[in-house]
């Protein structure tokens, strides 16, 4: 469930992920006003990012240092979000936890982006048996959801942030490959690319000059959606004990540790729960907003 909240479109990606047929060589960005969705997404993601950056320079307390005398305190001026069972300041932990959340997202999406996009473009440009091999391999990868991979990786390499990031990253590759391939196929059938091919430009040149600029939008959308997925996946893995090990603060593990206190100290669960929801919503809204922007068709039927 959690790792599947943003499903990877299957082999029929062109129809599910809304891709504008690139009619002009490069879409002009920034002409239209920002949509409310995009603004909301930017604000929520901005909050998470600023929180993470802030944690590098300032936290009210050491987020790892236990202080048994102050354990399990409710929110107060001294401890904005209260303290956990070790007497650690929850607010400080949440600040640092934002880092881990973004880190897991960046690395796992980075893996998928850097591996999946080139593969998709190659498959789209070359076609033939190369395309067949790439897309069938992608099919196999698709058969291993993030959670299954994480359980297997956790068993082989031990539960760690790195195992979790790699598992999430690998399971996200097929999504990028498919989006990039279908985008590439559309670009390749446009007249200007046909012209470029007639002028015997090299495939690499075509990829860089024509394909990349035109699919960058949908790839960015994919990144945003995959990012939201990664945040949820990290939380689910932490719940199963396969995520970030202690004492590094992680929102997912905080939520898991708070489970025993739900009846007595619900704030321990509410803050990390809300934080996760903010991050996931932020990236989803950002993705939606960007998609509307790159694809006028979805924007209420007016283009």
């Amino acid at each position: 469930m959690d790792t599947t909240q943003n499903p990877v479109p299957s082999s029929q990606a062109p129809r599910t992920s809304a891709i504008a047929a690139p009619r002009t060589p490069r879409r002009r960005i920034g002409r239209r006003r920002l949509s409310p969705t995009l603004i909301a997404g930017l604000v929520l993601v901005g909050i998470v990012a600023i929180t993470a950056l802030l944690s590098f320079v300032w936290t009210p307390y050491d987020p790892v240092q236990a202080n048994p005398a102050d354990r399990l305190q409710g929110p107060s001026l001294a401890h904005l979000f209260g303290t956990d069972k070790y007497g650690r300041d929850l607010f400080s932990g949440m600040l640092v936890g934002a880092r881990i959340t973004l880190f897991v997202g960046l690395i796992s999406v980075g893996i998928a982006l850097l591996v999946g996009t080139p593969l998709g473009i190659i498959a789209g440009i070359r076609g033939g048996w190369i395309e067949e091999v790439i897309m069938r391999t992608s099919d196999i990868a698709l058969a291993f959801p993030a959670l299954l991979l994480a359980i297997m990786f956790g068993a082989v390499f031990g539960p760690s942030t790195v195992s979790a990031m790699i598992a999430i990253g690998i399971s996200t590759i097929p999504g990028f490959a498919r989006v990039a391939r279908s985008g590439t196929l559309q670009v390749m059938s446009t007249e200007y690319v046909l012209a470029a091919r007639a002028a015997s430009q090299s495939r690499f040149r075509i990829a860089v000059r024509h394909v990349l600029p035109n699919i960058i939008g949908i790839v960015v959308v994919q990144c945003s959606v995959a990012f939201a997925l990664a945040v949820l996946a990290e939380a689910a893995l932490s719940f199963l004990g396969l995520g970030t090990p202690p004492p590094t603060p992680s929102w997912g593990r905080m939520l898991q540790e708070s489970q025993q206190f739900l009846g007595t100290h619900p704030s321990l669960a509410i803050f990390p729960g809300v934080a996760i929801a903010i991050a996931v919503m932020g990236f989803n809204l950002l993705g939606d907003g960007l998609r509307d922007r790159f694809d006028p068709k979805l924007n209420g039927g007016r283009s």
Partner: protein
Amino acid sequence: MRRKTPLILTAALAAATALVLAGCSAGSGGSTGAADTAERTSATIALTAAPVNLDFTTTAGAAIPQALMSNVYEGLVEINQEGEIVPLLAKEWSLSDDRKTYTFTLNEGVTFSNGEPFTAADVKFSFDRVKTDWTTTLKGKMDVVESVEVLSDTEVAVHLTQPSNAWLFNIATPIGAIFSPSGVDDLANAPVGTGPYEVASWTPNESLVLDTRDDYWGDAPGVEQVTLKYLADATATTNALRTGDVDAIVNLQAPELVSTFEEDPAFEVVSGTSSGEISLSLNNRIAPFDDVRVRQAVLHALDRQAIIDTAWNGYGSLTATYVTPLEPYYVDLNDAYEYNPEKAKELLKEAGAENLDITFKVPTRPYAQAVSEIVVSQLAAVGINATIESSEFPAVWLEDVFTNHNYQMTTVLAVEARDLLTVFNNPDYYIGYDNSKIAPIAAEADAADEAGYIEGMQQVQKQIVDDAASGVLFLFPNIVITTAGLEGVPENAIVEALNLTDLSWK
């Protein structure tokens, strides 16, 4: 379609209400009424670790004997709740003057669950079989037996190669379980013993159902059917108790969840003792813990009561080494290393080990995760920077730490009863303690009379503590929560067995 709007509002409201309600204290739980409990003939008990199969002769782990010993299998003797050795299949026994021959007189009219009568020949069969067919390391405890001699149907003599005080205790543990030659074909699925229960059904990782036998030789248990339910998640376990899906929880692994039950008259909470110590094991063979001063510094750096209070919500008690107050040779050495960060820093300075960086391998178990964070924090206060590395338990921890000794510091719940010598009197054990000083004392103690045994074992403990061989953070509590009306759930977990024979509904 406009009328759909209220629906969405309702949904949003419901979600908000759910959050608010969830936030309120969960104290007002609706449990099953305690009115008709006296008529109940079955009970369901929640346990944490599930047996992988039912054969403890070839499969390690405490979960199998926990379910089967005292219930399905019986030994010649057993350990009662006070930690004493008492008769079971043997009516009485005597020890020869050279302390090398035990002669047991057996109860008559005992049968196995497959109908076979129990005789002295079965004792010989079972004890001999330990050496030939058992594969777990427990089998070593039978090495001291030279031969088993059947004197008559109800009399059996066991000859030891040398006097041993520990042996009689050991045969009260799984190693002394009595099997029938006709009942060992499928131990993993169909155990056959002389106990009051037999296995009615068994679903791996889910549940084990025990039914009472009509032809049991002793007093019939107070309930006819006991279901042992294996629930890995502590919160789910307490939820199950609250909603009446289980009647008792034995050895709850989440002390934070206890408080709401303590206030509720529908439940009874008991915090008994167990044979388990939460260790802080230091690898004596490698730097920096090959230096006794560094080990002593670690012990001075730990505020163990604070660890109990924060990690385990105040449940648990102090002990200095792997001996619990219910063992006959217990001696209180808790003051040997008082909490003193300054002294710890001095010792570290003396040893030239200031600003130490170490790795701390933490098994993936609730108790270990709970203690690790506070231990790391306390060590940091004296300049020891411990980095936590998660180690999947049991598989990875066993291979990495236990077998390959690839660790500096680790923690583990050592559940085996009377395990002092297992841990320390073996330099190849994963702690790597140099046992040259304690080995002769321990050997002498085992062969001595009772008083000599106790005195010798106390000397062993003192030596181990002097050498700061390893830390014990605390003695693990046996937290038992029962629905009011269910009686006879054992409070203490002194040996592996969870004895279900005294269960009854009031």
